[in-house]
């Protein structure tokens, strides 16, 4: 699969809509037909599924809904999902900033190759992402015997879930921060340098404050994916209830047990998370658009 939105997405946001081409404005009929088609398409394939998650979840009444969510297994799955995101997101944030700094600030051979390699996890099927870790670290994997001898359990345990999630969400922060870092330019950093600032001082006092919305944007997207990942985590988790079950995997277990209210109740938490992500994304986009880039205030 080839990952998240193309890089140019955010350029859409400032909304500098050109005035309708006066000479070529569409007729009312065309407008109505096209708008109906577009909204119908989005309504049928995106809005309706969201609505159905909540109606199915509340089918047994609010009491059954709360009960399904408060099940110990659901709570354990929620905790594991939060833990996974709490580890893998910061790892990828540090990497994203380091990689963006490297690519945006220096000229060196192999830069394009490096940029392509960073995007690699986007083009790998989630199932294959899980598989590579099973092949490497599983009981029959390349390092399996060694890990077993030292009593280290990664596959079918929590570290494997975190590792697979980190792989899946690897490019998110880097690819959001990189264009912002390129856009703000190096003038202020070079000025700081001539004033005697050290590398870390430049990073924390000059660069990070300028790219913070880009970083936050990456964090939002990275977090959503980390909490929602299914395929890769499913392969490495072993599906042990209460132990290696994340929220998306718990949805599957409940669904396969024909516990529809339970499955959709847990799914509704994830749906709320997705809606929150979208809201956060819009807010960050607005703030970012308001931020004067590359100018000294």
């Amino acid at each position: 699969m080839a990952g998240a939105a193309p890089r140019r997405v955010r350029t859409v946001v400032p909304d500098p809509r050109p005035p309708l081409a006066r000479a070529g404005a569409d007729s009312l009929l065309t407008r109505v037909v096209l708008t109906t088609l577009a909204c119908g398409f989005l309504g049928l394939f995106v809005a309706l599924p969201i609505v159905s998650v909540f109606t199915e979840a509340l089918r047994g009444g609010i009491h059954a809904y709360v009960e399904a969510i408060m099940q110990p297994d659901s709570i354990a799955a929620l905790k594991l999902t939060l833990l996974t995101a709490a580890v893998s997101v910061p790892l990828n944030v540090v990497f994203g900033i380091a990689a963006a700094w490297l690519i945006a600030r220096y000229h060196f051979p192999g830069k394009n190759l490096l940029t392509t390699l960073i995007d690699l996890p986007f083009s790998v099927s989630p199932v294959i992402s899980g598989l590579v870790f099973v092949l490497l670290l599983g009981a029959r994997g390349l390092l399996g015997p060694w890990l077993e001898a030292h009593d280290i359990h990664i596959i079918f345990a929590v570290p494997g879930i975190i590792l697979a999630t980190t792989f899946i969400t690897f490019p998110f922060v880097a690819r959001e921060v990189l264009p912002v870092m390129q856009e703000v330019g190096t003038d202020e950093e070079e000025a700081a340098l001539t004033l005697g600032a050290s590398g870390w001082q430049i990073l924390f006092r000059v660069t990070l404050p300028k790219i913070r919305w880009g970083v936050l944007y990456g964090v939002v997207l990275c977090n959503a994916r980390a909490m929602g990942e299914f395929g890769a985590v499913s392969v490495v988790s072993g599906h042990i209830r209460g132990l290696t079950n994340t929220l998306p995997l718990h949805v599957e277990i409940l669904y396969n047990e024909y516990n529809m209210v339970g499955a959709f109740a847990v799914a509704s938490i994830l749906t709320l998370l997705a809606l929150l992500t979208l809201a956060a994304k819009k807010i960050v986009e607005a703030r970012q658009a308001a931020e004067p880039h590359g100018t000294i205030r």
Partner: protein
Amino acid sequence: MAVAADAVAPAGATARRGRRFGILPGFGLSLGYTIAYLSLIVLIPLCGLVVKSASLSWAQFAAAVASPRALAAYRLTFTAALVAGLANAVFGIIVAWVLVRYKFPGRAVFDALVDLPFALPTAVAGIALTALYADNGWIGQLLARFDIHIAYSPAGVSLAMLFVGLPFVVRTVEPILLDLDPQLEEAAATLGASRRQTMWRVILPVLLPPALTGFALSFARGLGEYGSIVFISGNMPMRTEIVPLLIVTKLEQYDYAGATAIALVMLLASFGLLLLINALQAAMTRKGKR
């Protein structure tokens, strides 16, 4: 830092020419960290797959890759992804056009809806689509009257791929449409082109390259998709079993060799697509600069 000490000299182009990499400190650290982390998380695990598949004999490899069940899975996965990609390309252009050019109540909501498939966990999408399009679901009921069944059939696979790939075309076409100079359309109109001619001869040719990129992204995403499809497809071998599911099945049967061989085929297919997408995007950027 060593670089910082002698970089007090005037910054900018002259300094850059003198040094190989740029004047800011931290090149060594950021290079080392980036390469180490990239290798640890991505490159070494992926190499493990290649090493593992190198240990298979040709006969083993061929038996896994070309078994009738695998062939049926490739056919289904590629066809369904193609259908979903094409549908997304057509509707993606329409949605992008409407969102950029028209003002209507609720536009912001529909704009946000476009991004939802990126944010919604695939398992949730899977059960929601199944609930809607199964024979007892809201939409499935209506379609069942005409003997159309989407859930638990190849059409369901396409539907799930359509959902997960939906944002790609819209979001690649949108910026190009925003950049499109209205004067082009005005010029076409003053030269006597009808609105339809302007649409087909002036606007669509500009939108085709980004739509093609979006199609390729959506297609690639469909090929690898797993989470949403396993719920809606019914997972019947030879009929509605997709390639990623076949890999998981082999893995669950401890057939690591078979899983690896099929994974390698899919990996090569998606890398091929990645190269194609990069080439397309590079071509678009070049065209944009001209």
